């Protein structure tokens, strides 16, 4: 399972999502979209919008931090 999170440095819900991943022993890759323009473009292309965080769990893309949604995506991704 691959978890990608697109963030900005000041975004509270990004911090909450990262803390959630850490507390559940989930590995994630973080992209600070203020530092990497290509990742910003990738995030917008994936989510069709310009808000952070965007979380991509094995292709399931969600905007914002929603524990239930992450849980479901992790569960359905855990068999892969």
């Amino acid at each position, binding site marked *: 399972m691959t978890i990608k999170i697109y963030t*900005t*440095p*000041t*975004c*509270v*819900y*990004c*911090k*909450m999502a990262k803390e959630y991943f850490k507390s559940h022993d989930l590995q994630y890759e973080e992209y600070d*979209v*203020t530092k990497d323009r290509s990742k*910003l473009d990738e995030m917008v292309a994936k989510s*069709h*919008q*310009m*808000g*952070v965080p965007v979380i991509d769990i094995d292709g399931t893309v969600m*905007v914002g931090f929603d*524990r*239930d949604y992450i849980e479901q995506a992790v569960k359905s991704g855990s068999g892969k």
Partner: protein
Amino acid sequence: MYDLIIIGGGPGGVAAGVYADRKKLKTLLITDEFGGQSKVSDEIQNWIGTKSISGFDLSKSLEEHLRAQKEIEISDDDLALSVAKIDGGFEVNTRKGKKYQTKTILIVSGSHHKQLGVPGEDKFNGKGVAYCSTCDAPLFAGKEMAVAGGGNSALEAVVDLLPYATKVYLLVRSDKLKGDPVTQDQIKASGKVQIIFNAEVQEISGDAFVDGIKYLDKTSNSVRELLVGGIFVEIGSAPNSDFIKGMVDLNEYGYVVVDSKNQRTSTPGIWAAGDITDLPFRQNNISAGDSVKALLDLYNYLNGR
């Protein structure tokens, strides 16, 4: 049956929770998240006893303080959906499908972002229309931007945009700014901000993303257009009082009417404090203080005093 159910996890809810535990009240606190609306603030400099703290750290410290109380029960990630009168008290239904019975209730559910309610706002939500400047301001680097509002949140959104946007139009409905003079000075000194008074946003337009807005210039009564890459909407707040409608008196704007001496609502057994109430000031410190006032009064009520 609980002695008390606290609905809300901002500074008011936590303050009441700490006091309730010390009074040994059998208490449940229901909240969607901790910290209240200032959770997304970069920096809070007026939380008394703390020179400076981020909204995120304040929300964590509030949560920790509450969880340090031994007896209090917490249903987090949950939300009160409705309240009904039952024998000897009330029943609270929650988003998790639970029903809780209680003798008293303290409503500290706060308020949420008000929307402009203009064409294009929903369509472009997240596509140039934004409500969290600390989160999303950096995404608009190199663009000309608009901010709607004239209070502290609007001024802070401008400040958040200054390092990134090439220009910021601040659209103020009235003829003056209401936010703190310190922040007003900061944005005026930047040289990047054009403040437009008596401006009413009428439409947000674009293709895939926002490329412009229209506003009514009330001074000349003409509609003008600005080419901007996005707009942050910071026009104040609206109360989270839908779940309590019909149970307590609300004012015309939906805020819970309270007796400011003791925070009682129109319904015996229900108290309210903080941003949900009809008080004129919305502040973390006031929410905490008013909530403690409510708790002490409801403690007396439970003890028949």
